[in-house]
C-alpha cells in the first residue's frame, strides 16, 4: 500500500525552515492536515524512520509503545476486561457469593473467576479450537465456523469501508443485503441450471441488487444533495417492508405450499459448495471475499477509479478543482459499496442459510459491518482481519451462551468497546500509563463528516 508509511515525528532533517513556517502559520486553522497521516494496518509494524535527534533505541521503544499494533492489542484487552466485569457482575453465583463478601471473600473471587474464565474459555473453544473433541478434524471445526461467520462481515465491511474512503457513510447495509439476498435467492430457487453457471448468475444478481439499492442513495445524494445517512437509514426500512411483503406473497418470494413468510430453499446447483467437505460449514463465499478483498485493494490502491475515490474522500474540493466529477464519484462509490454489501447478502442465502430465507436474513450484518470497517481502518486487509476477529466473537458467542448462559449481547458490547478504544489511543495509553508518542495525534479512523459544497 502506498499510503501506509506512517510518520510519528514530523519529517526531520528535511526542510526545517519551511516546516517551521507551516506549523506556525497553519496550526490553528488546519490542524487536521498535519495531524492526519493515516495509520498503518494494525498488524503491520511501522517502518522506523531515520532520526537524527533522538537515540535510535528510544525511537524503537517509542514505536513499539506508541505503535498502533500495541494499542490495538490493548484495546481488545480493555474491552475484554470490561466484558468480564459485566459478566461477573450479572452472574448469579457471583451475586450470591458477594452477598456475604465480608465473611468469605474467597467465594466471591472464586465465583468471579468461574464466571469469567468459563465464559471466555467457551468463547475461545467456540471460535478457535475445541479441546473437548478427540480429533483435530473435529477440534478445529470452530475455526471454520469463525471463518464462515467472518465471510459476510468481511464483504459488508469492505463495502462500508470503501464508502468511508470516499467520505460517505453507508448505514444502509441492511437494506442492501436484503435486496441482494432477494435477488440472489430468487435466481437461486427459480431456475434449474448447471451448477457453475447457476452460482455465477445468482451471485451476480445479488451483487447487482445490492449495487442498485446502494447506487440509488448515491444517485439521490448527487442529484438532490440529500444526506446519505438519512437516505440509507430510510431505505433500510423500505427494503425490509418490501422484502417482508414479497416473502409472504405467493408467486413472489414465498415458498409454494407454505403459509410462512419464507422463501423456498435454494436449488442444489445454486448453493455454495463447502470448501472442506460437508463436515464443515465453510463455503465458497469465503473464497469470494478473499477475491473481493484483493479486488478492493487493487481498486483503491492501484486503479485510476480508486485514486479518484480516495481523492474525493480526502478532499472533495481539491478533487473538483482537479476535474474529478465528485457527484459521479459518489454514485460509483455507492454502487461499489452496495455491491460489496450485496455480496454479504449473497453469501447469507447461498452459503449460510440455504434452506430458504426470511426477512431477517441480513442478521444485523449491515450494522456490524460498520464496526468491522472502523476496526479495519477502512483498508481492505485490515477489514479482512477485523472481519475474522468479529466472526470469531460471533461464533464464540454462541458457545458462550450455550455453555455458560451468558447472553450474546455481551459480544456486541465488547466489539463496540474495541472500536471505541482503538479510536482513542491517548485513552488507552493513559489507562496503561504508556508514554506519549513523539509525533502528534494521528487520525486513526476515517473522517466521514466531510461534505463538498453544493456548487
Amino acid at each position: 500500500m502506498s499510503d501506509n508509511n506512517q510518520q510519528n515525528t514530523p519529517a526531520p532533517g528535511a526542510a526545517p525552515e519551511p516546516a517551521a513556517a507551516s506549523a506556525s502559520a497553519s496550526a490553528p486553522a488546519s490542524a487536521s492536515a498535519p495531524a492526519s497521516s493515516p495509520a498503518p494496518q494494525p498488524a503491520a509494524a511501522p517502518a522506523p524512520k531515520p532520526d537524527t535527534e533522538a537515540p535510535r533505541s528510544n525511537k524503537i521503544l517509542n514505536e513499539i509503545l506508541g505503535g498502533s499494533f500495541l494499542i490495538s492489542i490493548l484495546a481488545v484487552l480493555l474491552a475484554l476486561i470490561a466484558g468480564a466485569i459485566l459478566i461477573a457482575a450479572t452472574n448469579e453465583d457471583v451475586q450470591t457469593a458477594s452477598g456475604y463478601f465480608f465473611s468469605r471473600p474467597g467465594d466471591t473471587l472464586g465465583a468471579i473467576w468461574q464466571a469469567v474464565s468459563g465464559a471466555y474459555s467457551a468463547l475461545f473453544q467456540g471460535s478457535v479450537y475445541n479441546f473437548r473433541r478427540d480429533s483435530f478434524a473435529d477440534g478445529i471445526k470452530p475455526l471454520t465456523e469463525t471463518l464462515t461467520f467472518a465471510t459476510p462481515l468481511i464483504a459488508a465491511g469492505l463495502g462500508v469501508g470503501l464508502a468511508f474512503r470516499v467520505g460517505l457513510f453507508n448505514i444502509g447495509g441492511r437494506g442492501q443485503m436484503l435486496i441482494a439476498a432477494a435477488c440472489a435467492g430468487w435466481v437461486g430457487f427459480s431456475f434449474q441450471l448447471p451448477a457453475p453457471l447457476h452460482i455465477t448468475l445468482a451471485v451476480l444478481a445479488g451483487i447487482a441488487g445490492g449495487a442498485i439499492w446502494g447506487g440509488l442513495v448515491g444517485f439521490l445524494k448527487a442529484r438532490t444533495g440529500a444526506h446519505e445517512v438519512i437516505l440509507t437509514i430510510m431505505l433500510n426500512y423500505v427494503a425490509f417492508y418490501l422484502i417482508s411483503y414479497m416473502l409472504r406473497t405467493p408467486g413472489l418470494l414465498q415458498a409454494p405450499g407454505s403459509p410462512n413468510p419464507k422463501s423456498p430453499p435454494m436449488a442444489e446447483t445454486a448453493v455454495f459448495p463447502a470448501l472442506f467437505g460437508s463436515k464443515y460449514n465453510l463455503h465458497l463465499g469465503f473464497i469470494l471475499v478473499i477475491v473481493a478483498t484483493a479486488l478492493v485493494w487493487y481498486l483503491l490502491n492501484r486503479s485510476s477509479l480508486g485514486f479518484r475515490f480516495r481523492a474525493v474522500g480526502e478532499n472533495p474540493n481539491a478533487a473538483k478543482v482537479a476535474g474529478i466529477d465528485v457527484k459521479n464519484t459518489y454514485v460509483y462509490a455507492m454502487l461499489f459499496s452496495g455491491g460489496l454489501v450485496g455480496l454479504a447478502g449473497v453469501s447469507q442465502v447461498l452459503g449460510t442459510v440455504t434452506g430458504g430465507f426470511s426477512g431477517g436474513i441480513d442478521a444485523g450484518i449491515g450494522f456490524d459491518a460498520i464496526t468491522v470497517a472502523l476496526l479495519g481502518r477502512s483498508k481492505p486487509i485490515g477489514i479482512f482481519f477485523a472481519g475474522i476477529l468479529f466472526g470469531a466473537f460471533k461464533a464464540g458467542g454462541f458457545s458462550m451462551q450455550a455453555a455458560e448462559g451468558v447472553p450474546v449481547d455481551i459480544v456486541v458490547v465488547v466489539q463496540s468497546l474495541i472500536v471505541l478504544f482503538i479510536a482513542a489511543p491517548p485513552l488507552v495509553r493513559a489507562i496503561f500509563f504508556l508514554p506519549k508518542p513523539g509525533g502528534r495525534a494521528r487520525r486513526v479512523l476515517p473522517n466521514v463528516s466531510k461534505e463538498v459544497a453544493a456548487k
Partner: protein
Amino acid sequence: MEETLTITFRKAAASSLAGVGLVALLAGCGSAPSSDNTSGGAAASDFLPCIVSDAGGFDDKSFNQSSYEGLVEAADTLGVEPKDVQSDKEDDYAPNITNLVDQGCGLIVTVGFALADATKAAAEENTDVDFVMLDDNSIDLENVKPVVYDTAQAAFLAGYTAAAYSKTGVVGTFGGSQFPTVTIFMDGFADGVAYFNEQKSKDVKVVGWDVKGQTGSFTGGFEANDTAKQLANALIDQNADVLLPVGGPIFLSAIEAVKDSGKDIAMIGVDADLYETAAADNGLFLTSILKQMKSGVTDIVEAAGKGDFDATPYVGTLENDGVGIAPFHDYESKVPADLQGELDTIKAGIIDGSITVESPSSPSTK
C-alpha cells in the same frame, strides 16, 4: 480547558464508581451460607433438556415464553438443570442448535417455524439427539416431533364471543407482523364473528383485519411500543369495544390504550390465559385464546425424560384441548347468559366437522 474536561470526566467516573462500590458494600454485609450445598434436588439424571428460542427471545410473552416455562417445569419435575439459548438473528439458529448438541443435550426444543431448516439439518446430523419442533410440521424424521396448533379453532370461539359481547357492533384486532402464526388468530376470530352474524342475522363488524384480502393492521414488529398503542387507539376510534392484539407483548400497549380511552373496552388475550398472567390489568380480559404450549412442552419433555420420546406429529385442536378459550372470569356476568351453551355447541360442531374453520395459515394436516 483540557484540564477542566479531564477533571469533569474523572469526577463523573469517580462518582459512578463510588456509587457502585457503595451498593457492593451494602450488599456484601450478608452472612455466608452455613454449608456448601451440592446441588440439591432429586435424582441426578443424565438427561439434559434444552431449548432454543427464535428471534423473539424467552421473554416474548408468547410462544417462546410458554415453551420455555413448559421446559423448566418438566426439568424441575425431572430434577435436572435445563439449558436455554436465545437467538437474536436469522443466522443464529444453526449455531445455537449445534452448540447445544455440543453441550450434550439429549432433547432440544426448537421454537418457531424459522428454526425448521436448522432443526432438520441438526436432526439429520445428530440422530442420537431428539428434537421437538414447535409451530412447524414440515419435518418428517425419526428424532423430530413436530408440534403445531390449530389456533384458528379457538380463535373462532373467541370471535363468536366477542361478537356476542360487543355493544357497539364493532370488534377489532391487530397483529405484530403479518406472519401466519399471527394471522391464524385473526382469521379464526373474524370467521367466528362472521358465523355469529350469520347465526343471529347481526352485522358485527371486524376492523383491523380483512380475511378475504388478507390485509389489516400491523405494528411492524413485536415490541410493546407506542406504535402498537396508537394502532389500538385507531381501532378504538373506529368504535371497537373488543380488542384482540396478536403478537407477544403488544397486548401491553393495547392495555394502555384501553385504559387511556376511558371507555369500556374488553380485551381478548392470546397464547395463555392473560387473566392469570397480566396481573394488574386482568379485569380487562373477556377471555383468552389458549394455545397450550406450556403444558404440551412439559408433557413431551417429561415423557422424553422417562425415555418415552415419540416422533408422532402433534396438532393441538379443540378436540385434544391443545387449543381452547379461557373462562370469562370477571366478565361472567356481562356476557349473554346463553353464550356458554352456544359456544359448547359450536365447539362440538368444530370437533365433529360440521363447522369448518379454515385459515390459509392453518397447519396442513398430513
